[in-house]
C-alpha cells in the first residue's frame, strides 16, 4: 500500500510499487488527463508535476512517489472554469488532435510557476522534451506566452484564478514586465 498525494487529495493505492504513476492515475484514480503516448519517456504526453517539477509519469514508478505532491492537468481548472493555461490554449486554439495538450500544459505550468517572465528562449528550452505530432508547436508557444500574461494580470490585480481576465494583445513582448499602466487598468479589490 502506497499513499499518493494527487491534486491535494491523499489516495491509498494498492498497485504494485513498480507500477508507473500514469497507470495509477488513469486506471485507479480515473484521472484521464495525462495520456499514454510512447510509454518510454520520450514524448511528454504523460507529463504531470511532482513537487512542482515536470515529470514523465509513464516511466516513474509509484515506489518513488510516497509523500510527494503530484499535480495533474485536472488541477488546473475545469471546462466551466478553465485555469490560465487552459484558457490560453483555448484562446490560441493550440491543439489539433489534442493528445499532447495535457502534457504540454503541465510542462508549461512547471515553468510558469517558477518564472512568469520566462524568455522565448527559456520557454523553448523548457518545452523541448514534449512532442506534438500535429505540429502545433507555434500555437503552443503562443498559448504559453498568453498564459503567462493572464497569470501576471491575476497576480497584480489579486484576482482569483477562475475569474476571467480581459483579452490581451498577442503581439506584446511578454518577456518584459507589463507596463505599469497596463497593470493599473485592472480593478483593485
Amino acid at each position, binding site marked *: 500500500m502506497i499513499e499518493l498525494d494527487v491534486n491535494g487529495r491523499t489516495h491509498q493505492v494498492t498497485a504494485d510499487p513498480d507500477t508507473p504513476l500514469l497507470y495509477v492515475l488513469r486506471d485507479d484514480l480515473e484521472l484521464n488527463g495525462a495520456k499514454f503516448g510512447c510509454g518510454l519517456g520520450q514524448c511528454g504526453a504523460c507529463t504531470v508535476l511532482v513537487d512542482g517539477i515536470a515529470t514523465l509519469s509513464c516511466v*516513474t514508478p509509484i515506489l*518513488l512517489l510516497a509523500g510527494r505532491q503530484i499535480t495533474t492537468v485536472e488541477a488546473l481548472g475545469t471546462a466551466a472554469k478553465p485555469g490560465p493555461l487552459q484558457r490560453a490554449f483555448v484562446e490560441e486554439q493550440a491543439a489539433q488532435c489534442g493528445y499532447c495538450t495535457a502534457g504540454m500544459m503541465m510542462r508549461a505550468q512547471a515553468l510558469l510557476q517558477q518564472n512568469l517572465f520566462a524568455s522565448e528562449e527559456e520557454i523553448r528550452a523548457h518545452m523541448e522534451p514534449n512532442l506534438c505530432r500535429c505540429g502545433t508547436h507555434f500555437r503552443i508557444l503562443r498559448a504559453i506566452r498568453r498564459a503567462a500574461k493572464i497569470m501576471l494580470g491575476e497576480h497584480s490585480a489579486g484576482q482569483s484564478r477562475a475569474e476571467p481576465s480581459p483579452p490581451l494583445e498577442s503581439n506584446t513582448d511578454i518577456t518584459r514586465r507589463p507596463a505599469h499602466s497596463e497593470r493599473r487598468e485592472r480593478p483593485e479589490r
Partner: protein
Amino acid sequence: MKARTRSALIWLAGTLTPLMGFVVYAWRPAIAPLEANAPGQFAQAAINRGAQLAALGNCATCHTAYGGAMYSGGRKLATAFGNIYSTNITPEAQTGIGKWSLEAFQRAMRQGVDREGRHLYPAFPYDHFTLVTDADNAALYAFLMTRKPVRARTPENELSFPLNVRMVIAGWKLLFLHTGPYDNAATQDVTWNRGAYLVNGLAHCGGCHTPRNDFGAENSQRFSGADAEGWHAFAIDSRAHTHEAWTADSLYAYLRHGWQEQHGDAYGPMASVVQNLAVATDEDLRAISIYMASRIDGQPAPAAAAARPPEPPQSEDTGAQVYAATCQNCHDGSRPLPFGGVRLTLSTAVTGESATNLINIILHGLNPAEVSTGAMMPGFGHTLTDAQLESLVSYIRSAQASRPAWADVDTTVRAARSRDHD
C-alpha cells in the same frame, strides 16, 4: 655599503639576465594583418577537406557558445586554473581571425601564438596540433576563412596572477610542448599511421582521455582515462574496462553512429564529438578505429575480468527495488539499441573506473538535443532521492559489473548534483 650595492647589483643581474633571456625566448612578433580576406581565393576541394578536418578536430564544440553562432567563440572552459573563454574563429576582422594570414594560422596551430604575437593558453590543444601537416592546416584555414564572419567579442579570461600574464605560457611550452611533425611508425601500415596522426594530432583524443599533471599538461599515462567537464573520459588503452573488447569494427560503428550495441551510447562531451564526426570521411574514421583498437589491444579478456560472479538481487535492498521498478523495463527489455536501453552489463558507465557517468546519466538522462544519433533516456534526478540514487548505483555496480564496488558513490552523487550542467 659599497659591498652591499655590489651584491645587490650581482643579484639583480643574476635575476634579470635569465628573465631577459626568457623574455627574448618568449617574445613573438606580430604577423602582418591581411589587407582583406578574399574567400573566393580558396578552392572548393580545400574548403570541403577543411570541413572534414574541422569535424575531426571537434573545433565547433569549444569555439561555439551555447546558442551562439557557429565558431564565434565565447564558450566558457572551466579549468583548474580559472575560466578561459574560447575565441571567435570566424573570419571577422575586428573580433575574429579575419586579419590572419595562413602563416599566422599555422603559427597558432604549431606554436600556440596568435597573430598579434600573444601566447595562447593550452586549453587550445596546440600540444596536439603541432602534428598537423601544412596541407591540413591550409585546408582548415580555407574552411574557416570561408565561414560567415560574425562580430562577437568574447569575454575576458578569468585567471589570476601569474597565469594572467600570457608570457608565462612560454615556460609551459618549454616544458610540455611536443613539436611535430608526426613520425610514421615504420612497423605499421599507412592506415594505422594515418589513424595515429589524427588521434594524437588534430582529433586530440588525449585532451580528455589522458590524465593531466599539476601544470595541466597531459602526463605520460596516455589514454588511461581522466575526468573532464564533469564526466569521466574512460580509459581507451589496455586498461579499458569494457565487458566486450573493442575492435576496429566496433569502434568504427561507435564513432560513425554514436552508439554500438555491445558498448552503448556516446554521451556527455563525447556526444558532441560524435555529432561533429558525422561529416568526417569513412576512411578517416576507419583509420582512427584501427589505430585505437591497437592501443586498446591487450585489455583483460571479459572472462578474466570477472573476478567474482554478479550478486543476485536482494529484494529488500532499496537499490534492487528501485532498479526493478524504474530501470528494468527498458534495460532488460527486448528492444535493441538505440530503441531500448543498453544491457547494463555491457555499459562502460557501469564497468568503468568511475561512478560519475552512471550517476550523471541517471540524474539527467540522455537528452535527444545533445545526443543526436543514439538512444535517449529520461532523467530521474528529480524523482530519486540521494539515498535512493546511491543505493541504485551501488546495486547496479554489484549486480552487473563483476568489478569491485565504487568507494565514493555518496560524494560522487553530491558532486554531480551540485554541478552546473551548463
